[in-house]
């Protein structure tokens, strides 16, 4: 089991990127806060033995992904939220790159929730396909296919929104 000082340093290293991952997945800052705290609490309750940073981080991301999926499952039964209704958490940032980030955030909303997670884990966190498969509980082969589709979809939206040119400049 982790002691408080080990957890403290692990938390300080992971909290910011972890919150951004959840926010990018759920596009709702209040919900992101809830899932963020609940994930760490469940992580600590699990009495994880490993001191390996990569394993601990993967486990934490798996908990958050499961919580987000539980949320989507419940929401699916209640009502369907269109991508435009989702909160744009990138707009909390000062001007400058805000518009570009907002456009990229909008493009991400066109992806299925699971694909959003995959894109983040692959291209922000640099997880391997095998690690992503472990975190999201899907087959490694499916990760390749779903990532390919997600990439194509994103590039399509990037073209329409003119993001491709902006990124190139």
């Amino acid at each position, binding site marked *: 089991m982790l002691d*408080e000082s080990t*957890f*403290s340093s692990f*938390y*300080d290293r992971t*909290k*910011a*990127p972890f*919150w*951004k991952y959840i926010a*990018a997945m759920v596009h709702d*800052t209040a919900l992101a806060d809830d899932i*963020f*705290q609940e994930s*760490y*609490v469940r992580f*600590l*309750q699990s009495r994880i033995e490993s001191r390996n940073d990569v394993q601990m981080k993967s486990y934490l991301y798996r908990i958050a992904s499961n919580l987000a999926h539980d949320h989507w499952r419940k929401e699916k039964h209640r009502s369907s939220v269109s991508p435009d209704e989702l909160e744009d*958490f*990138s707009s*909390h*940032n000062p001007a400058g*790159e805000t518009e*570009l*980030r907002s456009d*990229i*955030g909008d*493009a*991400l909303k066109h992806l299925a929730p699971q694909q959003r997670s995959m*894109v*983040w884990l*692959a*291209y*922000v966190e*640099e997880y*391997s396909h095998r690690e992503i498969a472990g975190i999201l509980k899907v087959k490694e082969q499916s990760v*390749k296919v779903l990532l*390919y589709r997600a*990439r194509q979809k*994103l*590039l399509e939206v*990037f073209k329409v929104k003119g*993001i*491709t040119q902006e*990124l190139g400049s």
Partner: protein
Amino acid sequence: MNCPQESFVLHAVRSNEWTSELRAHAESCPHCQEIVLVTTAMKRFSNIDVPHSLPSHRLIWMKAQYARKQERISTLDMVTLIAMSAAGVMGLAGLLFWRFPKLLGGILGGTGSFPWSTMFSGGTPFIAAVGALLVVWFLTRDSFFAER
């Protein structure tokens, strides 16, 4: 659909450390061009600030301690409930056999049939005991079926 250089290109975009060979490859490989574009976009998107301060590690730690304590209490609750119920049943059974030795003899004597007549001959205490058990069960049934 895949390129063996993908992971190197991905890392180069993230760290901005390119070798000339890798850059030349990324410019000529359609797959890697896609990777560069998507990774650059995600890098820019993820480069935001968290809009508010996140809770301290201490708060999360205390919450986890509390949740763990609740979990322990819940387990202890269940064990206590089962032990108390078992003790109650055994106590009542003991009382019945003490009050009705013929009943005990009938069961243990191996006469082949259950001594129903003995049991119900002075039957009020037996029925009262069964009734008491039913009342206890009725009052505690929520604890047995509660979601844990």
